[in-house]
């Protein structure tokens, strides 16, 4: 064999061995495990990242009261994390941010807009029948966990979760007339009149004070968008009965 042919063959062989070595060195061992790709990539992508959205069952473990209210209400199809954001490792890795601007949040779904299906409850923000002069937060009247006013649950005050040690209030038996009278009050003041989180706590207040306040709201002497509207149609008897009722409730 002539020397130049031998050298050519030697060169070829060297290249070939180098190529095989390089391929073997560079190629991931899991390549071709399942197909023409790196098998480990699938395992890595199945493992990471840890899920951020945990689902309502995760929330229910601690927030059972709210969860029960939510499953009974009109928002039952809207899971916790739609409004509250991803739970991640809450409560271990921090608190959940409370939706602050509910006008902005609620209208993301409920602002009347061409293209939204007719079945979707929608409002024209400027015309929404809310007694107000300027914009007020949706939460003022609607309980986000059961938003329908006068729905199957009736108007429900937002649950103020109380520690297990708190004194439970015995339910007060009310006449049908009183039930209908207090209906507009409970969303903010609570059925027990003790909801100070949203508004004034009424339970155990002075009867005369309650009468005077209600009269002033009715006449407009005291200005409050919601209170002016809900007291407008009250008679003197209604005011007296309401004051009597809330004054008789055990205070917080």
């Amino acid at each position: 064999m002539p020397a130049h042919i031998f050298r050519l063959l030697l060169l070829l062989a060297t290249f070939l061995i180098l190529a095989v070595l390089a391929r073997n060195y560079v190629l991931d061992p899991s390549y071709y495990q399942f197909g023409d790709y790196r098998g480990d990539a699938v395992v890595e992508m199945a493992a990471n990242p840890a899920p951020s959205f945990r689902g309502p069952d995760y929330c229910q473990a601690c927030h059972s009261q709210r969860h029960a209210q939510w499953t009974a209400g009109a928002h039952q199809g809207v899971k916790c994390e739609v409004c509250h954001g991803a739970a991640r490792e809450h409560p271990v890795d921090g608190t959940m941010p409370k939706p602050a601007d509910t006008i902005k949040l609620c209208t993301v779904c409920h602002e009347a807009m061409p293209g939204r299906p007719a079945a979707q409850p929608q409002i024209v923000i400027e015309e929404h029948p809310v007694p107000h002069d300027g914009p007020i937060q949706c939460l003022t009247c609607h309980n986000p966990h059961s938003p329908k006013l006068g729905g199957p649950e009736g108007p429900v005050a937002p649950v103020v979760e109380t520690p297990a040690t708190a004194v439970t209030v015995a339910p007060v038996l009310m006449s049908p007339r009183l039930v209908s009278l207090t209906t507009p009050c409970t969303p903010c003041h609570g059925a027990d009149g003790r909801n100070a989180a949203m508004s004034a706590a009424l339970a155990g207040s002075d009867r005369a004070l309650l009468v005077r306040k209600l009269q002033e709201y009715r006449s407009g002497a005291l200005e409050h968008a919601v209170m002016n509207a809900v007291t407008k149609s009250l008679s003197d008897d209604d005011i007296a009965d309401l004051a009597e009722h809330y004054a008789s409730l055990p205070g917080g």
Partner: protein
Amino acid sequence: MSVTQDSKKDKIGRRDFLRVSAKALAGAVGGGAVFAESVAQNEHTDGTKASTSFPTEDYDWTEHRWAYGIDATRCIGCLRCVEACKTENGVKKDAHHFRTWVERYVYVEGEERARVDSHHDPQNIAASGSEGEYRFDNRYKDEKVTKAFFVPKMCNQCQHPSCVQVCPVGATFRTEDGVVLIDKEYCIGCEYCVQACPYGARFFDEETRTSDKCTWCYHRITKGLLPACVEVCPVEARIFGDLNDPSSPVSKFIHENRVHVLKPETGNAPTCFYVGLDKEVS
């Protein structure tokens, strides 16, 4: 070339040369056989795909055939899906990088073609307040609208994906359970797949210098969870499940409705099935 021009005078002819070369090559391959062993084992000489079960204890990918349903007649355009996807998958929170999006089609009276916009339209960014929040503005409220609807979009996880076809490095592939994934370690960022996708479902992530797209939340579905967008959809416009299970939501969705896929003419055979598409949606 002396070999071809005058083979008789040469000490070695063309045939001999080829014969010797072939032997030398065979020898060289034999020498490298030890190193090439692992490769040879997995080479598919018979043309079939090697298919072993998924190597984790709790999940066997041969048992699942994931599919996605989108009911455009239910979508309210709230864009919670867009936001949830970004949170779940750590996608950049600006308006121009996204794995899923929602298109709004509006036919204004007197116009033949629909006006189309999505969350990254400047007016919509202005309405949402920032690029990290997503909402449609109400620009058509005073117009005479004859027809309007929303269409959620995302990667169609095609059965014959063009993106996989064009990838030069084997960085993108279709899994046994029907999801097209991107191996970020192998991706060289050539963006050929971004060009090849007929649905515009892929984008380029400048930070990692790799392509990116929807994975149907592969890290969730392999753990028995729903993709984040399906999890947060308040109106059940997004439906997900296993075609192997006839009682899964997506099987029912496909059986009970007349479903369409986007751009069937491409032959990509998507596994995202739509209800309520209109002539201009593609």
